[in-house]
């Protein structure tokens, strides 16, 4: 197969073109038909028009956010599966998703979300940061990767318990509904401000994860071999986990919990990159972006009076698909 050569450039180029096409599809699709040429032309000439408003304030941020969140989840899933050498790892496993979600839920619980637009994402990022800090305090000087996973599971459980507590004592059904809907995950009704606040953390996280690519390849032969190949295993593990935390924390802060993208995408891509963790990351980011954009398109066309949430459809499609993948690949993976 052409796509199985040692060079990812062709594969990534094909995926990039596909991503651009899906992005174009996403911004040209909406509740009302608008003339995209007019929208961009009006904005260029700094003329306010309904078209440019719909395009730049509604569709473009939504599509960009879907692509960015999808890319983050795909990349982080690939990076963590490489680090843990476990195909069942997903971005939430280190506890950062529930940390970010808890931060956001508390904002809803206390009704702070109305004060300023940035309260919600900042609270989410703070939650993610605190979760990571807790994990590193728990892990301490331990050199074992198992300790890291267990600490992540524990932090996830605590975050989940506190979210349940907030739901339990939510003052009004309205607040409870707000929390629940937010937890389901969505990129609807977002603006460029959310993109702006999430993008720096995402980019930082992406670079940190991609920086670990060669290390993840070396890790295929075990930690001792990776060390003998010149890698500082403890330092690079920290870099990678912090990269996941920064990018996934930012993604959850602006879009809520969106499941299965981070778990399924690396499985889907792996055979096309010769199972190489390093090449898997960039390709998974691109596929993650494409799939989440498609999922968001599906959400928009399926929604009637009640809007369907993005996280619902990714889980609905992702879970059975994951089962299928496992059945298909159980002979290749040990």
């Amino acid at each position: 197969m052409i796509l199985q050569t040692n060079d990812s450039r062709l594969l990534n180029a094909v995926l990039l073109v596909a991503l651009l096409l899906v992005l174009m599809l996403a911004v040209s699709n909406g509740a009302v038909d608008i003339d995209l040429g007019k929208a961009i032309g009006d904005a260029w000439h700094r003329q306010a028009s309904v078209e440019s408003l719909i395009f730049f304030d509604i569709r473009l941020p939504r599509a960009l956010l879907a692509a960015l969140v999808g890319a983050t989840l795909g990349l982080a899933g690939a990076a963590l599966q490489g680090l843990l050498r476990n195909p069942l790892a997903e971005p939430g496993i280190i506890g950062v998703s529930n940390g970010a979600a808890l931060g956001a839920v508390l904002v809803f619980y206390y009704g702070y979300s109305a004060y300023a637009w940035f309260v919600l994402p900042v609270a989410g990022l703070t939650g993610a940061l605190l979760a990571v800090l807790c994990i590193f305090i728990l892990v301490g000087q331990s050199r074992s990767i198992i300790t890291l996973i267990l600490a992540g599971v524990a932090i996830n459980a605590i975050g989940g318990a506190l979210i349940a507590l907030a739901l339990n004592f939510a003052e009004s059904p309205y607040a409870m509904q707000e929390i629940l809907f937010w937890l389901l995950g969505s990129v609807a009704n977002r603006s460029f401000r959310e993109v702006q606040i999430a993008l720096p953390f995402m980019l930082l996280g992406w670079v940190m994860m991609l920086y670990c690519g060669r290390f993840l390849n070396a890790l295929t032969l075990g930690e001792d071999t990776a060390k003998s190949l010149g890698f500082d295993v403890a330092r690079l593990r920290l870099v990678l986990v912090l990269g996941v935390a920064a990018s996934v924390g930012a993604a959850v802060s602006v879009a809520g919990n969106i499941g299965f993208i981070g778990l399924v995408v690396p499985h889907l891509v792996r055979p096309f990159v010769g199972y190489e963790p390093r090449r898997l990351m960039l390709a998974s980011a691109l596929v993650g972006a494409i799939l989440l954009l498609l999922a968001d398109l599906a959400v928009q066309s399926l929604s009637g009076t009640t809007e369907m949430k993005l996280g619902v459809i990714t889980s609905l499609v992702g879970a059975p698909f994951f089962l299928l993948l496992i059945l298909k690949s159980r002979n290749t993976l040990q």
Partner: protein
Amino acid sequence: MNLLSASGIDYGIDGVSILNDIDFHVETGELVGLIGPNGAGKSSLLRLLTGIEKPDRGEIRLEGLSLADISPQQRARTLGYLVQGAQAYWPFSVEKVVGLGRIPYQKWWRQQNDEDRAKVEQAMQVTETLAYRNRIVTTLSGGEQTLVMLARILATENRLILADEPVAALDPYHQLHVMEILRQHASGRRAAVVVLHDLSLAARFCDRLYLLSHGNLNNSGSVSEVLTADNIARVYGVDSQVQCNGKAVSVTPLRRISDHHP
């Protein structure tokens, strides 16, 4: 010329002493065998020599420089470490596994270049693994996998290879093949250290032997100095027949010594 030397090495894990006051050296052109019963500390000594663990006391020098002062990348280019029972976690192709040996020469954003590919090709040629370059490494036999892992190390072009029981669980054909490759590597400016359980193989291929027992250096020197029936009885607790035919020494373990308490 001295390539690697260790002096006064003490090492322990969680307060349990593993190695006591070990002196060790490898000269260029030498194939050095590290022998001793299970749990004698052979693998630990090898890990210290590769620099992936640090000794509690003593110093290790590589090419005259303290191992602790050498950058990890430079160390990786000079020392190749073959882990015992090395395996790949992902279903990589053979060529990809061998390609990992080029990592010490690559920047983090760079793909393989022509030189890398040439070295990988050469390493597969030496180990006779070219025939299955596109096969998935996890589907190969144990002997073939060991040769692939050895090719991965050869692709780095290290001066010194440190191999931990590379021939354990291999058939005679592959045992000889692996030892021949190591022997061939240990010439000119290069050298190799190999942990072995098969004393006849050690006698046949190694220039010098180190005999470890309970974390202490029991004996070291030429094959005929170390592999005496006396030494084997004391350290391994078995009576054995040691035959010398010119250069070829063969060791046949006969029976356990009943009052030996390891």
